[in-house]
């Protein structure tokens, strides 16, 4: 079987990576082969998605738990995510061919990169809890080592530490969750779990634990703290995968549990998950809009997009729980569509961030600028990505948000007051998140690629090899295609949601191709295809009109700037100043944003300064709080290390007497 061979090839590549040593060409070969393997897996996923509906054959390997062995199976959901994953991994691998030579220690990246790929793919096809968790941890450990690739930087080490802790926490949550699903007899295979019936408490716990487990990997607020630390710490092509793909694998786990293994999730979880999603989206984008570090900004925007997807999933659960399977299918398709889109443009944006860092050596917005002229390819691709992630038509990001809005607008049709009042609020959150995302990426692109260079390196940025540019171009093209022909995508997705919701979701109900009218044509419809054609038409007409009526003469001159131009680039708006209005409006109460201005006296030569202080309440009160508690107890417990033998004997004696008392009491009964 093709997929199996590709997976084993990845394992072999890991060995090769170990042997690669200092020879750069060997690293390049490894990355190239990784790319090929991902393409094979991609093809496998597409084939299954296109041709065979339902589940593929089951593969059993004589490993894993001795009495049940390891089960693998490819069904539509896994196939879809396999496509999602390997699209990005292929791009990242080919990108790596050119990128690996710019890494400080490529030997610490090349061996684990294939392992990471392997882990993610294995999670998707695992068909029993044990293999699922093994692959899941495989993924986590490989990515942990990749985060540690540049281990000489202390901040990277602490990021890796936090990441590892959160990952393990998530694994334990999933482990207990599967324990509940499997029951005391230990039916760890997924088919057995589907058959199992849970009582209400267990059912509740399963959902909660799944949310904690998968959510900590996907970066749901408040479990997101590790994400903006760890994703940027890794090499950019790995950050791209962690942010663009690994979070999706986490969502896969969530969907697998909530829609497949767990028979009936009560509708009440729907609103809860929606609110979690809404909060995650808004907080994520608010963090993002304040960041100056390009990669941290992208990582936070990942948090936002995960929130958006969660809104879709929550809606789907609410609909499914109250029997509205048609709408459940709609919401689920919307969520999955957004998953696909986000994996594409987030990978693209991280790759371009990597390109920027390679070209300039800076990731701080304050030292970039004017790169569009130096790196036209990267700039153009990034512009597409930014527009897509800002949910602008006719790109793919807009289609999924549109679908999510459409299903949101159907939310109040449910007979639950929680939905009637919750949905508008969540809708407002989603809208706010979308608008802020636009602001965030106008800022990011505008500061980094437009204007005048803010540092010498930015001014001397150089163009990058094709191996790094082509993957970005391909992803950008995908953003456009997926936006321009949404119906094709939604038709493919409806095949995926059929087993989960039981209905075939006819996405273009009565208007037919290319009109996207999820519920009915009078319900509201959208057609990216038509918009693109008409838009281009009007664009052309505009040009014709303007050039027909007017001149085409252009004169290059200095900027006018209201009459008093400053030629020093520092006079431009910086990221901080751009964010200032948003910071004042949204963050002063939320993050306790405080600005302190220091204006020197006349005659004082010291520069004026503006200091901005932000505190992240979640980090301060939740995470540091836990840390303090552990320290406190550890100090107390640690005293037991410094007793004398007599006291140790006393402890022994006390234990003995206590147990004897227990026995005595028990015997009296």
């Amino acid at each position, binding site marked *: 079987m093709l997929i199996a061979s590709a997976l084993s090839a990845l394992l072999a590549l890991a060995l090769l990576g170990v042997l690669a040593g200092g020879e750069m060409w060997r690293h390049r070969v490894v990355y190239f082969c990784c790319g090929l393997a991902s393409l094979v897996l991609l093809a496998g996923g597409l084939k299954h998605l296109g041709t065979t509906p339902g589940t593929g054959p089951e593969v059993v390997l004589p490993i894993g738990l001795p009495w049940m062995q390891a089960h693998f199976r490819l069904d539509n959901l896994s196939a879809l995510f396999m496509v999602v994953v390997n699209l990005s991994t292929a791009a990242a691998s080919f990108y790596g061919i050119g990128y690996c030579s710019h890494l400080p220690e490529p030997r610490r990246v090349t061996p684990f990169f294939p392992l990471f790929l392997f882990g993610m793919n294995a999670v998707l096809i695992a068909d029993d809890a044990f293999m699922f968790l093994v692959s899941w941890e495989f993924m986590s450990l490989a990515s942990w080592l990749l985060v540690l690739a540049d281990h000489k930087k202390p901040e990277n080490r602490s990021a890796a530490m936090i990441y590892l802790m959160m990952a393990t926490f998530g694994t334990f949550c999933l482990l207990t969750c599967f324990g509940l699903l499997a029951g005391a007899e230990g039916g760890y295979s997924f088919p057995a779990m589907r058959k199992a019936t849970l009582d209400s408490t267990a059912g509740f716990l399963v959902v909660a634990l799944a949310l904690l487990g998968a959510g900590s990997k996907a970066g749901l607020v408040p479990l997101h703290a590790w994400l903006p630390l760890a994703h940027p710490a890794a090499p950019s092509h790995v950050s791209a995968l962690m942010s663009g793909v690994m979070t999706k694998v986490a969502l896969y786990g969530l969907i697998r549990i909530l829609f497949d293994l767990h028979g009936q999730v009560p509708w009440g979880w729907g609103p809860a998950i929606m609110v979690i999603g809404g909060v995650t989206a808004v907080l994520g984008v608010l963090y993002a809009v304040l960041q100056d570090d390009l990669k941290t900004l992208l990582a936070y925007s990942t948090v936002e997009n995960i929130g958006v997807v969660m809104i879709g999933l929550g809606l789907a659960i609410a609909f499914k729980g109250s029997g509205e399977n048609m709408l459940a299918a709609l919401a689920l398709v919307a969520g999955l569509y957004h998953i696909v889109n986000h994996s594409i443009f987030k990978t693209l944006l991280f790759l371009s961030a990597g390109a920027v860092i390679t070209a300039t050596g800076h990731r701080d917005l304050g030292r970039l600028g004017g790169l569009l002229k130096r790196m036209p390819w990267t700039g153009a691709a990034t512009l597409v990505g930014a527009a897509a992630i800002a949910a602008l038509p006719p790109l793919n990001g807009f289609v999924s948000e549109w679908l999510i809005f459409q299903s949101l607008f159907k939310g109040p049709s449910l007979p639950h007051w929680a939905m009637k009042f919750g949905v508008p609020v969540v809708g407002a959150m989603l809208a706010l998140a979308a608008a802020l995302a636009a602001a965030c990426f106008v800022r990011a692109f505008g500061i980094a690629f437009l204007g005048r260079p803010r540092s010498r390196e930015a001014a001397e940025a150089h163009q990058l090899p094709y191996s790094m540019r082509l993957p970005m171009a391909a992803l950008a093209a995908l953003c456009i295609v997926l936006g321009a022909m949404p119906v094709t995508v939604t038709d493919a997705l409806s095949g995926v949601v059929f087993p989960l919701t039981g209905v075939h979701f006819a996405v273009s109900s009565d208007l037919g191709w290319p009109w996207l009218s999820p519920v009915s044509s009078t319900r509201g419809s959208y057609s990216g295809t038509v918009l693109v054609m008409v838009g281009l038409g009007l664009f052309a007409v505009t040009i014709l009109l303007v050039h027909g009526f007017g001149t085409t003469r252009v004169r290059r001159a200095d900027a006018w700037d209201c009459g008093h131009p400053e030629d020093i680039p520092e006079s431009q708006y910086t990221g901080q100043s751009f964010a200032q209005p948003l910071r004042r409006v949204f963050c002063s109460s939320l993050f306790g944003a405080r600005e302190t201005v220091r204006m020197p006296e006349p005659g004082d030569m010291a520069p004026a300064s503006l200091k901005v202080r932000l505190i992240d309440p979640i980090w301060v009160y939740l995470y540091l709080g836990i840390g303090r508690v552990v320290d406190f107890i550890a100090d107390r417990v640690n005293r037991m290390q410094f007793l*004398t*033998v*007599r006291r140790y*004997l006393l402890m022994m004696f006390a234990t003995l*007497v206590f147990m004897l008392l227990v026995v005595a009491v028990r*015997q009296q009964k």
Partner: protein
Amino acid sequence: MAISQISYELAHLIGATVLMAGFQLLYQRRLFAVLNTFAFQAVALAAAAAWQAHIQDAPHLYVTAVIALVFKAMIVPFALHWLVEKLGIQRSVETAMSIGWTMMAGVGLVALSILLVLPVTANAAALTRESLALAMSVVLLGLLMMITRRNAVSQVVGFMALENGLILAAVSAKGMPLVVEISIAFSVLVAMTLFGIFFFRIRERFDTLDLHDLETWRGDRQ
């Protein structure tokens, strides 16, 4: 069964003597007195072993008796005397808990062990409740002594008293094999303890080898 009845009475009597000796150990305030009391306990133990050997007609228990008599009642006390002389150990017993409280705790322990053996259905064949209660009390008292005494020597004595209780239980368990080997093994332990005290130059403290600076070091305080 009159004979056996009497024989058991006598066995209990001797056992009780051992327990009494255990109590005396608790309230001795002078080191040499502790040693003498211990020697007395050992003699009583030897007697118990011998009597059991007689009534169970198990000759190998005589060996145990002899070991108890020679090793515990004579060699060990003398060795400890010598150590105290040689190392110039202070002669008074240093307690971590006032004698009175210690005694009360001791009584409590005896009560506990009686409480524990009460439900044991008496099956005269192996061992009567009484001897079991006696043995367990002696063991617990020995442990109590170890944790309420600060002097090395008196703690060693406590350890040996505990062991006396074990041997008492072992010998009075009818037909229990390997008692001899076990008592020999124990004698080795005790011998090592004494050796250790001598070798490590433990004067006062049992637990710091007089190396108080270790306290600051121990357990890698950072």
